[in-house]
C-alpha cells in the first residue's frame, strides 16, 4: 500500500538516538507525573469545593490545592515542552502530518490551556470561601483539561496510523478532523485519564505524609489510598479493553510474542498491585510511613513502566513504516556538552531556590510556634 508518509528530514539527527530517547522518556515521565496531578488535582478540588460545607477536611484540601495547582500547572507545561521537542526530532514527519490533519482541535489546545490555566488561578485566588462561580470555573477547568487530553490521545494515535491520513485529508483539509475510527482511542484515553486520577490519589497520600496534624494527615492518606485503589482496579479492566483493541500482532507482542513487551506488561500489572497492597497494609500498621512511601513509590514506578510501554507500543506500531534507528546521526557534541552542563547547573539552581524556600518556610513555622 502506498502511504503518504513524508520523507524524514534530510538533515541527520543532531544527537545519538539513545540520548534523544532517554531525554524524551525521562522528561515525558516527569511531565506525566505533573499532568496527572493537575488533571486529578483539579477534579479532586472540584469535589472538595462541593463537599466543603459538610467536611472540614475537604474545605482544607480545597484550600491546599488552590495554593498548589498553579505551580503544578506551570511545571506540567514546562515539562511538556521538552518531550515534544525530542519527539519532533525523532518522529517529526509523523507528528507534523497528523497534527495538520487535526489542525483545528490541535491548535485549540493552546486556547484551552490558557483558559484552564487562568481558571486555576481564579480558583486559587478566590480565598477560603469559594462561591458558586469558583466551582463553575473549576468545573470548566476540569472539562478543558479532559478535552486537551482527548485531543492529545487523538493526535498521538493518528501519528501512528498513516493508512488513515489521506482519507481524513480529503475529507477535511481544513483540519476539522479527529481520529474517531481508531479502535483503541477510547480505551487508551480512559486508561490514561483513570491513571491520572489514580496518580493524583498518590499525590494526596504524599501530601498526607508531609502533614504534621494527625486527623487531616490520616484523612488525606485514606482518601488518597482509596482513590488510587479504586481507579487502579477500574484501570485493570480498561487496560484489558485497551489491549484487546490493539491490532493483532501488536497485542500479541505484549502477551508473549515479545519478551521485553511482555515483561513490561507484567511489571505494569504487578507494580500497581504492590502499591495497592502496601497502601492497604499501611492502614493496619501503627507507624505506616514507610509502607505508604513504598506504596507511593510503586505507584510512581508504575507510571515509569507505562511510559516505557507506551514508547514500545509506538515503535511496534510504526515498525512496518518507520524506524528511527535508520536515521543518519551526526551528533553536535559541543552543543550537547553545553546543554548537559547547563542542565546540571539549572538543576543546581532549582535546588538552591527550593532549598531556600524550604528553610525560610520552616523558620517561619518555628517562629509562629514560638509566639504566645
Amino acid at each position: 500500500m502506498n502511504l503518504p508518509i513524508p520523507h524524514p528530514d534530510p538533515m541527520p539527527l543532531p544527537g545519538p538516538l539513545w540520548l534523544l530517547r532517554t531525554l524524551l522518556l525521562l522528561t515525558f515521565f516527569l511531565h506525566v507525573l505533573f499532568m496527572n496531578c493537575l488533571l486529578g488535582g483539579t477534579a479532586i478540588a472540584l469535589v472538595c469545593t462541593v463537599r466543603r460545607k459538610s467536611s472540614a477536611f475537604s474545605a482544607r484540601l480545597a484550600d491546599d490545592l488552590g495554593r498548589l495547582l498553579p505551580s503544578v500547572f506551570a511545571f506540567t507545561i514546562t515539562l511538556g515542552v521538552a518531550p515534544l521537542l525530542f519527539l519532533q526530532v525523532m518522529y517529526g514527519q509523523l507528528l507534523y502530518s497528523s497534527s495538520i490533519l487535526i489542525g483545528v482541535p490541535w491548535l485549540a489546545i493552546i486556547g484551552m490551556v490558557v483558559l484552564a490555566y487562568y481558571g486555576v488561578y481564579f480558583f486559587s485566588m478566590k480565598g477560603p470561601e469559594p462561591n458558586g462561580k469558583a466551582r463553575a470555573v473549576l468545573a470548566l477547568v476540569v472539562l478543558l483539561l479532559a478535552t486537551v487530553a482527548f485531543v492529545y490521545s487523538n493526535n498521538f494515535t493518528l501519528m501512528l496510523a498513516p493508512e488513515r491520513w489521506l482519507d481524513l485529508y480529503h475529507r477535511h483539509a481544513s483540519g476539522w478532523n479527529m481520529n474517531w475510527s481508531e479502535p483503541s482511542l477510547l480505551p487508551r484515553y480512559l486508561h490514561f485519564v483513570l491513571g491520572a486520577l489514580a496518580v493524583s490519589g498518590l499525590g494526596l497520600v504524599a501530601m498526607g505524609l508531609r502533614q504534621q496534624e494527625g486527623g487531616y494527615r490520616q484523612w488525606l492518606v485514606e482518601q488518597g489510598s482509596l482513590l488510587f485503589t479504586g481507579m487502579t482496579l477500574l484501570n485493570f479492566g480498561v487496560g484489558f479493553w485497551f489491549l484487546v483493541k490493539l491490532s493483532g500482532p501488536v497485542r500479541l507482542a505484549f502477551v508473549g510474542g515479545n519478551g521485553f513487551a511482555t515483561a513490561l506488561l507484567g511489571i505494569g500489572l504487578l507494580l500497581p498491585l504492590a502499591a495497592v497492597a502496601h497502601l492497604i497494609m499501611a492502614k493496619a500498621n501503627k507507624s505506616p510511613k514507610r509502607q505508604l512511601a513504598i506504596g507511593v513509590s510503586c505507584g510512581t514506578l508504575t507510571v515509569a513502566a507505562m511510559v516505557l510501554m507506551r514508547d514500545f507500543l509506538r515503535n511496534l506500531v510504526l515498525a512496518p513504516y518507520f524506524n528511527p534507528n535508520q536515521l543518519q546521526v551526526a551528533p553536535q557534541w559541543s552543543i550537547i556538552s553545553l546543554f548537559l552542563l547547563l542542565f546540571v547547573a539549572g538543576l543546581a539552581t532549582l535546588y538552591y531556590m527550593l532549598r531556600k524556600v524550604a528553610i525560610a518556610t520552616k523558620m517561619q513555622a518555628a517562629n509562629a510556634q514560638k509566639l504566645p
Partner: protein
Amino acid sequence: MNYPVWQLGFPGGLLIAAVAVLHVFISHFAVGGGAYLVLTERRAYSHNDSELLGYVRHHSKFFALLTVVLGAVTGVGIWFTIGLVSPEATSSLIHTFVWGWAIEWVFFFVEIAAALIYAYQWDTLDRQIHLIIGWIYFVVAWASLVVINGIITYMLTPGRWLETRNFWAGFFNPTYWPSLWIRTAMAVALAGIFGLVTAMWEPSALRERVVRWAGGWLVLGVAALLPLSRWYFHDFPAYARAYFSGIYPAVHHALLGAVVCAEVALILALFALLRPKRMNPVIVAVLLLAGIGVMGSGEYLREFSRYPYVINGYIYATDVRVGQIEGIAAKGVAKTSPWVEGSADNPHTYGRELFAMECGSCHSVAGYRAMGKFTRGWDAKFGSEILLHLPVVRETMPPFAGDEHDRAALGSYLASLAPATPSGANEKQLGQQVFAIHCALCHSVSGQRRPLDLKGTDPEAIAGMLGTLGDINPDMPPFTGTDAEGRALAIYLSSPK
C-alpha cells in the same frame, strides 16, 4: 509537498503572525520586567520606601500572571502553529537547533520556578535571598532570549551555515548581535510600559513616583531603539534592504508604523517623566498600543525581509527546499506529493490543490493578499506562462515548483478566480485594461516600478514587439491576448494619457 497543507481559507502566515506578536510582546516584557522588578525592589529598600515595595509586590503578581501563563503558553503556541503551517521548515529548524532549544528549555524551567518563587514568597524569604531569586530570574530570562535570538536571526541571515551546516555558524549569524541588543532595548521599554500599567492602580502620591521611575525605563529603551535599528537593518541582506525602498506599500506602511509608534512612545515617555501627575490610563493604553505597534511592525519587517524564503537560501516560503525545485519540475507535483488527488479527471480540483500547496502560505483566494485581485481577466495560457517567471514578477515570490502540466492546471485555476473580458468604449480604454491584465504585474507606464515608457512609439511597432517578448527579454511571458487586444494595448502604450 512532503506534508499535507493545512487549508484554513486564509494564509497560515497570518495565524503565525497573530500568535507570534502576542507572544513576543509578553516575552520581551518577561525579560525586561525581570530587571525592573528586582531593581525597583532594591530601590524600595535603599529609599526605605514601603509604599514602593507594596507596588513591586503587586506588580510581581501581575507579572507572573501575564508571563508565566499567557507568555509561556503562547510560546508553545508559536511552536504548534509553525509546525502546522510550515512543517518542513520547522523540522529543519528542529534538526539544526534541537540542542539550542533544549538549552532554552533549561532556562525556561528555571525562569518559571524563579518567577513563581519571586512573586509568591515575599513574606517567606529574607530580603537578600528574595533579591537573589529576582536576579536569577532576570539572568535566565535574558539567557533564553540569547538562545532564541540565534534561531530567529538564522532564519533571515543563516550566513556561513549554508555552506558548513555548522550549529555555531548558523547561531552567531550576521544579524545576531544587532538583533540581540534591539530586543534587549525593546525588553527595557516594555518593562517601562507595563510598569506604567500597574502604576495606574496605585494611589496618587505613589503613582507619581512610579510613573517617573517606569517612564525612565521607557525613555531608555525607546531611545536605544533608534541607533540599534539602524545597525540591525544595515546588516540585512542587500536584496531585503531593497524591499525598504518603497516598492512594497506594505513594507513602507510597516516601517512608517514602527517609526510613528516609537515616536509616540518616546513623546509619551517624556511626558511621563515631566508631568507624572497627568499620566492617566488612557495615555497608558495608547502606550501599550504603540508598544504593540513597534513590536508587530518590527516582526513583520523581519518576516517580510525573508521572502521568498522562510529559511534564507535554504527553504522557500512555500515550504519547499531550494534543492527540491529542479526535481519537482522534472517529475511533476502529482508524482512528488502523495497529498494531491489525481489530475487527469478534474484539472480544476487539481489546480485548487496546487494553489493550496504553492500559494496558500501567503495568499488567499479572496481575503488577505487575495489572488483574485491580481488574476482578474487572466486567460489560462497567461496564467500558465506567468508561473514560469514568479521571482521576476515579485522578488518576494519563490519559483513555481512543478512541471508543465502542473503549470497549466494552476494557471487555469488562477484564471478562473476572477474571469473578466477586457472591453472599453474605445481602443485606448480597452488597451488600458489589457495593460492592467497582461503587463501591470511587473510594469508601470511611467511610475517607479519597471516603467514601460513607450510614449510616441509607433503603435504598429509596439504591436510587432508583442509577438517577440521572450526574445526581447527571456524573463517576459508571451503576450496571450487576441490580436485586437494587442492592437489596443499598442495604442494605449503609444499615448497613455
